[in-house]
């Protein structure tokens, strides 16, 4: 079993706000991230897939196809977008890095055929990242 990781970068803006909370609670819990005008991040996405090395091709997965799937399913939807307003998942969920990692997993997992999705890692900044392994 070989694990293959492909990186991609995207830029997006977001803010944190839960309509269930009062304005004061939102401010207290989310701090500066609660500014409704949003703020941006340069996200780095790492997608790891696993699989046996195909004896004929020597590949776990065709990297070009993986790149195309990541571009189509994730980057086209999230790059240079205001996540709260433009990405369907975040109309009802707060676009935290945790929820972004889960959304990326849910977008990619059904599209991969030969290799199996192992991990989605999303860096919000170089100092902060989230790993999601598809576990509940």
């Amino acid at each position, binding site marked *: *079993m*070989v*694990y*293959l*990781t*492909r*990186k*991609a970068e995207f830029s997006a803006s977001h803010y944190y706000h839960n309509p269930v909370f009062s304005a004061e609670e939102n401010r207290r819990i989310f701090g500066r991230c609660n500014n409704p005008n949003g703020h941006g991040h340069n996200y780095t996405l790492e997608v*790891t897939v696993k699989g046996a*090395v195909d004896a*004929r*091709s*020597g*590949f*776990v997965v*065709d*990297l*070009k196809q993986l790149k195309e799937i990541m571009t189509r399913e994730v980057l086209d939807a999230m790059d240079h977008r205001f996540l709260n307003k433009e990405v369907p998942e975040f109309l009802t969920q707060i676009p935290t890095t945790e929820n972004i990692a889960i959304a990326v997993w849910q977008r990619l997992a059904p599209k991969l055929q030969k290799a199996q999705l192992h*991990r989605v890692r999303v860096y919000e900044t170089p100092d902060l990242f989230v*790993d999601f*392994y598809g576990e509940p």
Partner: protein
Amino acid sequence: MSVDENRSTYGKCNNPYGHGHNYRLEVTVSGPVDASTGMVCNLVDLDGFVEREVLSRYDLENLNTLKEFAENVPTTENLCVEIFEILQRGFPHAHLEKVRLEETMMNSFEYAGSAEPRK
């Protein structure tokens, strides 16, 4: 594979003149910390082994001309597995956890033998 299948499978990588990469290799070993040295294994030994058995074999070489790639395509998957096996066969001073090989800044591969690489 036929000429067409090679082209469709490997794209630009099928150019028979070859192409180069600046690979980066990470070797992870584990073990208890020796009470007298404070080390898992002596890094000089590990560096020496990697230099002697891996880098001197593969650095600035045309991988396709080597015997281990006479029948296996030198994809980074296969190179990663090959390096893991060299270490597993020849480096007894610590437990080999995994080999991670970066082909480019955007692609990397990990192999941990029959185990799953540690999270």
